[in-house]
């Protein structure tokens, strides 16, 4: 009986660490992003920037955009409008919130649209000086950005994590999987048969 508890405890603790633990704490998921780009798009009143992306989960809740305010000199207002098919969000912040460089977090009330929704992000500013406020973009003027999606429901989060772990295991090297699961099996067997 003691051995059985030991085996159940050990295997359960692995499941806890690998699936349940992330489900409890990870409340948002990163989705579509553009992580490549080192161009500095001079961001002024006359040069607004608009870009589009398709969501890959529901409940879009924040967008992180890479910007640069050299020496944190510029304190102009920056306006952001995120528009979905049924709803939109507007945010305002100042140049002093932009570092040199910084990934600027734009957090808002989550959208309720389903996955694969097309969003438009429009960035405008009161800045008139071309040399001290920039958006980091790729060569097609697409900003370096990351999107995040709310995930607060434990049950759906748990299901998501189970699928995600299965997906990771599937993509992982076969030798590692064999060694790893072989070790679990061997340990269970060892505890079971040994005095």
């Amino acid at each position, binding site marked *: 009986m003691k051995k059985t508890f030991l085996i159940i405890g050990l295997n359960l603790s692995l499941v806890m660490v690998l699936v349940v633990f992330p489900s409890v*704490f990870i409340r948002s998921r990163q989705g579509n992003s553009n992580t490549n780009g080192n161009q500095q798009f001079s961001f002024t009143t006359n040069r607004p920037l608009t870009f589009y992306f398709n969501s890959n989960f529901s409940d879009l809740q924040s967008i992180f955009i890479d910007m640069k305010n050299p020496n944190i000199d510029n304190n102009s207002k920056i306006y952001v409008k995120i528009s979905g098919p049924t709803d939109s969000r507007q945010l305002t912040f100042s140049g002093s919130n932009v570092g040199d460089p910084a990934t600027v977090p734009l957090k808002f009330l989550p959208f309720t649209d389903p996955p694969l929704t097309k969003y438009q992000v429009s960035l405008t500013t009161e800045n008139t000086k071309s040399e001290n406020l920039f958006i980091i973009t790729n060569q097609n003027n697409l900003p370096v950005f990351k999107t995040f999606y709310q995930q607060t429901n434990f049950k759906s989060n748990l299901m998501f994590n189970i699928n995600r772990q299965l997906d990771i295991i599937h993509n992982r090297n076969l030798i*590692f999987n064999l060694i790893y699961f072989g070790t679990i099996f*061997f340990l269970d067997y060892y505890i079971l048969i040994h005095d």
Partner: protein
Amino acid sequence: MNTKTIIAIAILIRLLFIPFFYHPDMKSQNFHFQFLSQGVVNIYQYLSDNKNHLAYRDTFNYLPLTYFTFGSVQIVLRPLMPANFLKWVDDWSFSQNNYPNLPYYLLILKLPYLLLDLGIGYLLFKLTSSRQILIYWLFNPVSFYLIYILGNFDVLPVFFTLFSLYLIPKNAHLSFFVFGLAIALKLYPLLLLPFFLFISSKKIKNLVTNSIIAMLPLIISIIPFAANPAFWQSFFGSGLTQKIIEIKYLNIPIFPVLYLIILGYAFFSNKKNLSTQIFYLFLLFISLVNFHPQWLLWFFPFLLLQPNFISTKNQIMILLICIFITIYILLFNDNYLTWGHLIPIDPEFINLTSPYDLIRLKLHLDPQHLQQVTKYIIATLSIIFVYFHEKNLLNHRS
């Protein structure tokens, strides 16, 4: 359960858990170690010359023997790695954590640590003849955290210092040569060296001979780099020397002064109780140095050598100190010391709010101030601990 079974279970549990804990130091060190396989001998000059072309631009702040040892280890381990290991080592972009094989790399990279961890357990068993101490070493969360979660190579010099202690009664010269290897890998054993010298012999001739032997590996390994400014520049980028003189009273650094007092105690004491001396040094260190968590490993095996380590009173005090050290660690402004360790399970962990930010943004408290308060508490507990420890020793003698 017999000892073999205990060791087998300890190994298997480690194999199950070590792939899923990460710290970026392991990657940055392996980024530098990879250049040995490309024929780079002077890593300091190479990094200085190629700084602008490299994916990771920090200097290599360790000693030459560290580079050659772990560069060689990486060469040996490379055939066990999946094909894209070097791609991961070179990837410092946004996608650096999105590698499904990350647990595989970590498992292989930590295999040498597993051997050294077991080696330390073996030495502790030989030094104490206590099966209980061996079990304590193999199944306590502190050594697991320090060796496998932080994943730093400090476990090698720690192994050498303990091996040196084991060798002292058998062959003092060999013992100090082994100690010298630890110094040549990382300079911190210099803090422990005088204590080792005193328990070996207090005769001037022996002190000088053993000191020279202990310094030989360091001197031999840095001579080829001594004329290279890039070496010195990189080397003085490391933190320990600065940190031990950081806390001052009347502009006098307190740690060195109290260190000398403990050293005097060790020199004039007739007892050959190295573990107590290192234990006091440990308490002094955690009280007066703004330490990085990985540095705790330097002392941890020696604490287990303490007489009556397993007594209830000691356990309670050690538990209290461990709790406050944990709080101290959680208050670092570094998500890689908290959630970031779990990246191999899910890269999203790095985006979770760190305890530092949580305290700052939700409770509107200054985490750095709280960290200093925690250190005062650790210092107070340490004083209480030393008082009761000395009192017990006196009672024991009378």
